[in-house]
């Protein structure tokens, strides 16, 4: 039998004193960059029920970000919308199923992902450790902002109701859901699955699987950089963003998760500030985090918070 996971696991990560100042500076820099959204119909992927668009917008450092946007063909009034964030290895999907449920849905490919890798391409594997000794140029600095800017795109859409925005994803998408919900107060509901990018330094001791293993590879090659790595990732750790989350949120984890250790899921959840929060744990499940059962819960959660008119 696999070992029991302590529900009160304490992460070793500490929030840097200048955490808020650092991210304020990043957001100010990003705000100075015009979004320049572009929405191109994709007739090949469009059906009678769902309109599909290729989307592009500009993010921090003027990197052009690609996304897929879907909306129901037949609409009455303004739509609730959901921002979908991708896994580490996943190619961002075309979110037709969300449009069929009545949402506008934006599926973002942050920098380095397919279709967003012309200006920034750290390779795969390598994203997790790209400039990991410097918080000012670490890959996830821009990557996080790319996700947050997806909210700006949705806010710019006339068919989207700006008071009914949600965010969701699993694995890296779960980690990005945490940071996005923390940094974008416009979000009304968030659902994070198997959150990655939470408890980086805990994870590399708890498991030896990729992608976290990239950091162990890096430290084996650069043992003198451990302190610098710890210092950098503390600015990017979802656990340090969690006390900024105030919207309703659900989190699901697998208790045999071989990619994102469940210990880090507990540590994250315990730090989330929102009072309306719920953790779903799935024994007998790995990195899927019980998706086959949990998807219906996510559907009900967003329907409750976003589908009904306010």
């Amino acid at each position, binding site marked *: 039998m696999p070992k029991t996971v302590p529900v009160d696991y304490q992460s070793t990560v500490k929030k840097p004193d200048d955490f808020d100042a650092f991210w304020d500076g990043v957001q100010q820099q990003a705000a100075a960059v015009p979004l320049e959204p572009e929405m191109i119909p994709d007739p090949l992927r469009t059906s009678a029920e769902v309109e599909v668009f290729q989307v592009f917008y500009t993010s921090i450092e003027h990197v052009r970000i690609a996304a897929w946007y879907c909306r129901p063909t037949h609409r009455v009034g303004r739509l609730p919308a959901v921002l979908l964030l991708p896994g580490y290895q996943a190619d961002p999907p075309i979110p037709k199923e969300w449009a069929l449920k009545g949402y506008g849905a934006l599926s973002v490919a942050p920098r380095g992902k397919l279709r967003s890798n012309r200006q920034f391409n750290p390779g795969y594997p390598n994203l997790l450790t790209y400039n990991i000794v410097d918080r000012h140029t670490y890959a996830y600095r821009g990557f996080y902002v790319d996700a947050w800017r997806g909210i700006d795109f949705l806010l710019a859409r006339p068919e989207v109701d700006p008071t009914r925005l949600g965010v969701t994803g699993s694995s890296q998408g779960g980690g990005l859901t945490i940071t996005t919900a923390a940094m974008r107060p416009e979000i009304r509901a968030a659902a994070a699955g198997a959150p990655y990018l939470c408890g980086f330094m805990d994870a590399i001791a708890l498991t030896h699987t990729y992608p976290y293993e990239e950091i162990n590879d890096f430290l084996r090659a650069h043992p003198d950089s451990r302190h610098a790595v710890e210092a950098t990732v503390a600015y990017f750790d979802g656990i340090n963003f969690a006390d900024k989350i105030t919207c309703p949120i659900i989190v699901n984890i697998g208790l045999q998760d071989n990619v994102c250790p469940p210990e880090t899921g507990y540590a994250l959840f315990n730090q989330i500030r929102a009072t309306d929060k719920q953790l779903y744990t799935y024994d007998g499940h790995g990195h*899927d985090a019980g998706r086959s059962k949990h998807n219906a819960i996510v559907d009900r959660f967003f329907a409750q918070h976003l589908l009904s008119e306010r």
Partner: protein
Amino acid sequence: MDQRPGDFDQYWQQTLDALATYPACPEIDVLPLRSTDFATLYSVRLTSLGPYRLFGYLSIPTGAGPFPTIYYAPKYQSVLEIIPQGTANLQRSRYITFALAGRGQRNADTPYAAMFPGLLTDGIDQAVSYLFRGIVADSVRGLQFLLTRRELDPGRVVVVGNDMALITAALQPGTTHVVTAPTLFYNTAELAPRTPAYPLEEVNDYLRAFPDRAEAVRRTLAYYDLRAFAPRLNATTLLMAGAPGTLLDAPTMEPLVTALQGQVTVYAVEQSSYKDGLYVEQWMAAQCGITDVHNILPEHWR
């Protein structure tokens, strides 16, 4: 059901003959960053049909060998993993592993960069120039290269992947075991309209845009249908079937199981990456004579 084309064998023999005209010309370099005290990782570049230069990650355990081998055939995704996400890195201490990017995947995306979705239907209306003809050749070339490694135990060669695993093992002798999770090429013309999910949704998109090409698409897909390859496959096979009631569940794939020539185990997935992943790791270890698989599992599976 798609009919097996009368020139099925000729189509694939011509593909293999064309591949044979290009020497692999392997270029192998150590990757120190991903090498450990228990395994060395190499980047590998190979030439395939086209000619087209491919990329792969080859990991060789420390020690004398020979070692059992896992060949991770090209996947339907843009990135190439050293070993699949979530696999214990210690897997590399017991097995040679080789993961290959087919044309269009990252590191093998010059000059052709595939789109996802988009790869499955690229050129699908012409069997002779269908993109997957090249990817099958790529996958065969990867296995051919792997079989030349002196560290490899020829009695323990496992090919793992989606449909590509089965097709590769059917076309290239040398595979002893196959782990296959059909996704792309099982009765595709019939099953695609029953799902809105990618990758098969690519076929639906394509036929909505080009309805007059439906027969041509059906003809092409017939050359790739797993049931047509099955009589060629003698390896011991683990067939990963979908959960009961899903598109590719075990009852649906019964004709494939019947047609396979080697010993077949059908495993219906439980939609748990833990239970399903553990089953595969234990099955491969048992087939390869590894008695302490517990020691090379992810920590949370032990």
